[in-house]
């Protein structure tokens, strides 16, 4: 079970994998996520579903190597098997729940930042397959972190690419790009789905609020079980505690407490960093670097 069918390195730190998981492939919907467990002793890693192939029974995931567990996953190869692959978790995207009449009213802009293009892709694809129009803004710090550009181009009407350093496409961040598209190209939108780093979603939401565009964000807070048992994934939305794994992962971006959520994400930063060092340096790790406290 859970065999890695395909592995593709998209950038030096971002990987794509097709995992054999027929039950998840059968019931998964855009917007939902899975939890992967590399080995019996591994961590539970939540990852958004990037694509599904019901016939082949595979689920596509895209991840960036940020800690020891994602590094370990990146080191696995086609044919290897994951110890666990659980899902689909969370609620499906709002768009999928809407009626045809509602969807026809929507002028949708997707904003994808960095690895955020992975969760945006299945939603844009779903819109395309069901005959609805949408535009996509794809932003990253630099050209080498732009992923899934070709895939996205096929499923949207207009794809706008931007990089912070101007190495590819428009020079500027996704907010600059959105202003440009609206002001210079005369586009108008009434629904935005914005997925990417927390800080990007925060600023994009400030802008869309000004512009009066309803905005949905997808959060990926710390998770343990992903089934609503532990409360690790709680976020403050409209002043109320919500569990991202059962109430989300998508929320109204104008109501999310991003500052609180960003602080929470840092909790395990040091421990994760330490585990990463231990993994990378293996038996040669002696704790002399001064960064890890010798652990």
């Amino acid at each position, binding site marked *: 079970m859970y065999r890695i069918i395909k592995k593709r390195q998209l950038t030096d730190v971002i990987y794509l994998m097709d995992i054999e998981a027929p039950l998840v492939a059968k019931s998964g919907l855009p917007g939902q996520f899975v939890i992967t467990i590399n080995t019996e002793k591994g961590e539970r890693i939540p990852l958004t579903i990037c694509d599904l192939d019901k016939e082949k029974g595979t689920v596509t995931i895209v991840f960036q190597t940020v800690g020891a567990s994602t590094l370990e996953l990146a080191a696995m190869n086609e044919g290897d098997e994951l110890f*666990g692959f659980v899902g689909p978790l969370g609620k499906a995207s709002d768009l999928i729940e809407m009626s045809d009449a509602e969807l026809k009213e929507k002028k949708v802009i997707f904003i994808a930042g960095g690895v955020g293009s992975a969760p945006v892709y299945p939603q844009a694809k779903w819109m395309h397959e069901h005959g609805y129009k949408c535009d996509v803004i794809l932003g990253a710090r630099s050209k080498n972190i732009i992923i899934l550009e070709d895939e996205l181009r096929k499923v949207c009407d207009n794809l706008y690419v931007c990089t912070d350093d101007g190495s590819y496409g428009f020079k500027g961040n996704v907010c600059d790009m959105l202003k440009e598209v609206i002001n210079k190209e005369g586009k108008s939108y009434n629904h935005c789905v914005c997925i990417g780093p927390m800080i990007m979603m925060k600023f994009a939401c400030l802008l869309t609020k000004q512009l009066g565009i309803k905005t949905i964000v997808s959060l990926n807070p710390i998770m343990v079980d992903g089934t609503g048992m532990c409360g690790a994934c709680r976020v403050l939305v409209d002043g109320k505690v919500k569990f991202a794994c*059962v109430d989300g992962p998508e929320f109204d971006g104008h109501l999310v*407490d991003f500052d609180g959520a960003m*602080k929470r994400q840092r909790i395990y930063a040091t421990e994760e960093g330490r585990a990463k060092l231990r993994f990378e340096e293996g038996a040669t790790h002696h704790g002399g670097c001064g960064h890890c406290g010798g652990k």
Partner: protein
Amino acid sequence: MDRMKRTPIREQDPKVRATNFDEVCLGYNEEEAVQEAQRCLTCKNPQCVKGCPVNINIPAFIAQLKEKNFEGAAKEIAKYSALPAVCGRVCPQETQCEGKCVLGIKGEPVSIGKLERFTADWSNENNIKLAEVEPANGKKVAVIGAGPAGLTCAGDLAKKGYAVTIFEALHKAGGVLVYGIPEFRLPKDKVVAKEVENIKKLGVKIETNVIIGKTITIDELFEEGYDAIFIGSGAGLPKFMNIPGETANGVLSANEFLTRVNLMKGFKEEYDTPIHVGKKVVVVGGGNVAMDAVRTSLRLGAEATIVYRRGMEELPARAEEIHHAKEEGVIFNTLTNPTEILVDDQGNVTGIKCVKMELGEPDASGRRKPVVVPNSEFVIDCDMVIMSLGTSPNPLISSSTKGLETNAHGCLIAQDETGLTTRENVYAGGDAVTGAATVILAMGAGKHAAAAIDAKLSNK
């Protein structure tokens, strides 16, 4: 021998065990067990049995122990309980069987729990076969959740010849027994894994990593040909207090903390799950879960404090756990209630603001209601706060299943005797029905439902 006094139980020294995760209680050996069994009066009208939620014939199994017939004792218990090695360790005996034992009137009640534990461990060590499996009857039953309720229901049905599959959301079977109750109280390999193995030996299949309501729905299970379904999905989502500072770094639920440590083995070098342990940890709550969290943080090196709004007398945890926690050096701040979690500019916990409480008039539940003492505010310095305030039901299954109704609290509605829900051929039991309760009640509910499912399906 003084009949009024219990045979002492051997335990790890408090100073030593406060730094390890090995089991606190070492249990009786054969001589000690027989000696303790001799104290039982084998009452004609045994009060202990009335105190036992599943009415184990206690004097009968103890009578076997007196004769050194340990196998006979194990078989006697097996008529009523599927998880004696677990229950002997975690049941609140002082309010159940032992609370009713007549010896308790003048002296100390028989150590029924410790005798049950001895019997079950002996039977596991000697690989005693406690049940025969009837020939396959061609009927299929799906069980949701591999906690005490689900395991028991599955085991009983398998013995009757049903093909049973358990679907479990997590990557390991056992429910609270693996992710909640810590190693030092309930050893995972020696006891829990063994119980799960025993259930598998009866022919039960366990599919981990499958979430019913998400991966597969109840309707799809019926379409796949299951004749009946039992839901034992547990208590659900942890509650928080809704006080300022609660989303700060260093505030977590007992479920998260214990899961990281127990299931994900955050305390072991070779496991990857990060666990951040504070230097000074405050656990809010007074139940078994709170005791487990506080004693776990103590073992991970923290100064560990309980904050509880009622008094020592009212702590709902098992008496033995409170006693052990005190011995190990846990600080108890009772009649104290948090009002705010203090946070630095990085969002990290620095302390917890509390008020003193006193007990007023009894409330609807009959417990005396704590009321705030005016001007009693004070701060406890700490860098981690663990909330252990109970749970509210998880809507995953009820919201994805038509015809499955819940009560005002969100718990599944199920008949007392049979566990039948509001939907035909769907049964439920354990914490999913009662809200957070006990292992023995969950086990009992699994047993009742198994009997009801068998009655229903064999009449067809």
